[in-house]
């Protein structure tokens, strides 16, 4: 029996040779194989043959290049020809792919950069923020509180199973005296171990505090940005000294602050507590931001449960913790703050729109395959292989994917950087949103691949022929198309419903009475320089001089430490004499004209007299009704921070946390009695007041941070921003979803009409009127739309609870007008999408359709 070369090696060698040489190469190999078999035996010849296959593998790349130059290039030319001849089809496919891809790149890109991308620290997923959770209110919700200094001490002195350590941060505004000029800097006080816990490596020097010398030599670590800006990036800065608040501080190192945490500052100093800050009375001063690191094997759930149990166990011994619990949350998640649900929505929408776009492109490609059935049949009959025809479809899809992907990238490269302005500035990492060139290239390659696969999926000559023969009405393809369209319309319905909910909610909240006036009120946060205002009297005189200066200019101004809806939150304990337990409310230190400036009505009693420094207080109506029911509170006493205060007046309630939260009980004490180093200056008047405020601040407190004056309405618009963003997102998603659903409905109905043309032709020949055919096609489309509408509204009904929670609208109830608008919008969209194929069906010519069918 004649020896044969190994079959696989022979097949491979054949493939590796160019078609024009293939026969000669194989013949030569056979000849050499026969010679070696004769000389050295069959086994040696087979070994040699396999060796030839291995040695020829490098030719693979050359063959691929040949292929690309040859047949793929001709397919590509074919795809370009299609785009020229059928520009609407090509634009539909490329545009739909571009829409889906740009949604995925932009929406997914924002969610990735702002939320999902790991923080730039080692094992960053083990970093957590911890919070104390307040007593539950009447609906069981708990306020989140930070950590007080005594609690931080307790945390650090405890042996933990799931935490390896904790570190605290607190904002500071150190003053830097340089050449006689005072500058207020952005600082951060961080507790010992902070740098180690985060895993921050210094660029220069060291990132740690020298605990032994702490009291004698104050230390500072500079941020890289400040080091470059103020010291020109001089490496010799280490161990030099910088004068902060009148004291020289030794510069220990330089660190890079990036990745959104902690918020970029100029420098970091050690966080140390005097003994009085660690007393029992300070357990309610929950102002420290605390981060923890989980053990390598610990989960967030286990750590959170351990921390909650720890806080709950403090209750019996420490009244300030009674009824409180705690939670640990992922630091990465926590940085997204109230915007996490919005980001989740963005991510889901990005994925969903890409999926919907792909489904629709498959639909469009299927219609095209149907239209080309004769041409494909001829090509197959002429000897083209099914694989060759499929490759043509792949190349056509890949080409349109490349065009759509390029368009999507242009949109993304414009929209992503622009979204930085549009995203809330208090959303950490929002400034990092963007698209790298590497990422763009990957997306583009991905879009070419996706286009190719979608082109292949749409290319189904056999089923298409089968559908033609059997008619579309009952075919599985038609049913699948209708199902997909109904799904898309259901999603659009849900988006429209959510959009109307958010819109109605915004309108309702905007018209809500917040209990104070924000128009024609200007505000500036002022921090008196400690160097010149280091004691109580100096501060009191400083604030007094500032108000007098403004009064002299004819401006009604006032001071407050805790303005409503500004984000400030001073939740302090108070107790009516004889009350069993302490209650909590908003504590503000204000000057006499505060209520006048802010338009908060004094319902009963009076405001502070100028210079009134006694232990007196004004309380809000909410506090009065809750704690003095049916009584006149004026003249009675209430204990605030363990000191008895006489109530001298009752003022109107203010929505301290925004119009969606009930006004908290509030208490106000006089600036003359307890003067702080910082306050918000508020003044009434027209825009020119802003200049006067700046003038007063710089005149009375030179060296205070450069004053920034804003209309008070800025606080309100900041508060409404997440809601506006939500509305904007839902609006855009609704439009994109509507376009995709409309396109989906159009392609499905057009596909069905195309398949039914012979049947429609016969019906026309048998006397069916155009109107009847038109209405039958429209009816079919509207049934799919009706199903989508019903499912979408069902989805809204089923998810009312969750939607209400996310949107802050309990029950997520749609008003009759919102419901009508939703239904009308979906019906108009569906009718528009169905109109074109229905008209085409009604014009079916029996002779032409029967001849070509």
């Amino acid at each position, binding site marked *: 029996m004649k020896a044969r070369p190994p079959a696989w090696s022979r097949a491979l060698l054949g493939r590796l040779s160019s078609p024009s040489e293939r026969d*000669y190469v194989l013949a030569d190999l056979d000849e050499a194989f026969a010679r070696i078999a004769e000389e050295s035996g069959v086994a040696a010849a087979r070994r040699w043959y396999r060796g030839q296959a291995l040695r020829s593998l490098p030719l693979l790349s050359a063959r691929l290049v040949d292929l690309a130059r040859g047949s793929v290039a001709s397919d590509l030319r074919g795809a370009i020809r299609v785009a020229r001849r059928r520009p609407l089809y090509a634009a539909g496919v490329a545009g739909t792919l571009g829409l889906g891809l740009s949604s995925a790149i932009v929406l997914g890109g924002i969610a990735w950069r702002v939320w999902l991308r790991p923080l730039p620290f080692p094992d960053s997923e083990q970093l957590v923020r911890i919070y104390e959770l307040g007593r539950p209110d009447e609906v069981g919700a708990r306020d989140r509180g930070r950590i007080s200094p005594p609690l931080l001490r307790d945390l650090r002195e405890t042996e933990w199973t799931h935490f390896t350590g904790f570190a605290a941060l607190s904002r500071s505004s150190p003053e830097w005296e340089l050449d006689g000029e005072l500058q207020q800097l952005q600082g951060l006080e961080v507790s010992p171990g902070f740098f180690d816990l985060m895993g921050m490596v210094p660029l220069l020097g060291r990132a740690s505090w020298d605990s032994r010398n702490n009291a004698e030599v104050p230390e500072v670590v500079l941020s890289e940005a400040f080091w470059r800006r103020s010291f020109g990036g001089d490496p010799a800065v280490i161990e030099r000294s910088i004068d902060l608040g009148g004291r020289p501080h030794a510069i220990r190192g330089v660190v890079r602050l990036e990745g959104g945490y902690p918020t970029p500052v100029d420098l970091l100093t050690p966080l140390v507590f005097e003994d009085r800050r660690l007393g029992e009375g300070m357990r309610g001063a929950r102002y420290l931001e605390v981060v923890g690191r989980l053990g390598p094997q610990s989960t967030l759930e286990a750590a959170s449960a351990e921390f909650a149990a720890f806080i709950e166990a403090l209750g019996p011994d420490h009244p300030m913790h009674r009824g409180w619990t705690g939670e640990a949350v992922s630091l990465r998640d926590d940085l997204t703050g109230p915007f996490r649900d919005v980001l989740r929505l963005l991510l889901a929408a990005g994925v969903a729109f890409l999926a919907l776009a792909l489904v629709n492109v498959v639909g469009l490609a299927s219609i095209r395959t149907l239209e080309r059935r004769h041409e494909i049949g001829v090509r197959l009959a002429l000897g083209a292989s099914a694989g060759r025809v499929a490759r043509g479809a792949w190349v056509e899809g890949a080409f349109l994917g490349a065009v759509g992907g390029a368009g999507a990238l242009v949109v993304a490269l414009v929209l992503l950087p622009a979204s930085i302005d549009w995203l809330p500035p208090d959303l950490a990492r929002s400034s990092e949103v963007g698209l790298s060139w590497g990422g763009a290239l990957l997306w583009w390659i991905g879009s070419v691949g996706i286009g190719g696969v979608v082109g292949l999926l749409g290319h189904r000559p056999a089923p298409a022929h089968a559908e033609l023969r059997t008619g579309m009405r009952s075919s599985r393809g038609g049913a699948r198309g209708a199902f997909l369209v109904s799904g898309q319309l259901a999603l659009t319905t849900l988006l429209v419903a959510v959009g109307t909910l958010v819109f109605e909610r915004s309108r309702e909240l905007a018209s809500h009475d917040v209990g104070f006036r924000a128009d024609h009120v200007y505000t500036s946060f002022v921090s008196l320089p400690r160097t010149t205002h280091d004691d109580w009297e100096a501060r009191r005189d400083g604030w007094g001089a500032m108000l007098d200066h403004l009064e002299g200019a004819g401006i009604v101004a006032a001071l407050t430490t805790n303005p409503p809806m500004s984000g400030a939150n001073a939740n302090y304990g108070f107790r009516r004499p004889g009350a069993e337990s302490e209650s909590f409310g908003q504590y503000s230190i204000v000057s006499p004209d505060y209520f006048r400036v802010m338009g908060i009505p004094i319902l009963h009693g009076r405001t502070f007299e100028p210079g009134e420094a006694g232990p007196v207080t004004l309380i809000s109506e909410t506090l009065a009704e809750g704690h003095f029911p049916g009584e006149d509170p004026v003249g009675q006493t209430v204990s605030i921070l363990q000191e008895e205060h006489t109530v001298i007046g009752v003022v109107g309630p203010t929505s301290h946390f925004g119009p969606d939260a009930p006004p908290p009980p509030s208490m106000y004490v006089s600036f003359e009695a307890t003067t702080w180093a910082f306050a918000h200056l508020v003044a009434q008047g027209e825009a020119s007041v802003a200049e006067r405020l700046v003038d007063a601040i710089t005149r009375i407190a030179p060296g205070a941070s450069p004053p920034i004056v804003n209309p008070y309405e800025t606080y309100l618009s900041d508060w409404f921003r997440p809601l506006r963003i939500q509305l904007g997102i839902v609006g855009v998603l609704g439009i994109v979803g509507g376009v995709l659903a409309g396109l989906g409905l159009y392609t499905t109905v057009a596909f069905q009409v195309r398949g039914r043309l012979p049947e429609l032709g016969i019906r026309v020949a048998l006397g069916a009127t155009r109107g009847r055919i038109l209405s039958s096609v429209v009816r079919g489309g509207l049934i799919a739309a009706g199903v989508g509408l019903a499912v979408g509204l069902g989805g809204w009904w089923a998810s009312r609870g969750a939607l209400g929670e996310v949107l802050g609208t309990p029950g997520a109830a749609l008003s009759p007008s919102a419901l009508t608008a939703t239904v009308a919008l979906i019906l108009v969209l569906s009718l528009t999408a169905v109109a074109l194929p229905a008209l085409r069906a009604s014009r079916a010519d029996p002779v032409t359709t029967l001849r070509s069918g």
Partner: protein
Amino acid sequence: MGSREYLGEFEQVVLLALARLDEGGHGAAIHAEILAASGRDVSIPAVYVTLKRMEGKGLVASRVETPAEGGRARKVYTLLPDGHAALLRSRELFDRLWAGARIRTGGAS
């Protein structure tokens, strides 16, 4: 091929083997010649790819021959004058380089 262009190492091997075959040769003959002269077992498909490229550059010509005794057709290559010139140019280059090169033959000292 421009006068400044030189042959690659494998191109030289293939063309030299072809030059050793008086009547030209097909892939298997060239492969056998390289094996006999140098002991190097090269890939036959690679020989064809190289010859095709050389043919494109006008260094070799090919013709299809059917053996008189029957059997499969063969593609037989012959070296053209430009092929000879290219080989000589490559050799001159190496000769010039070798002339000035100080190569230690006794290993590193």
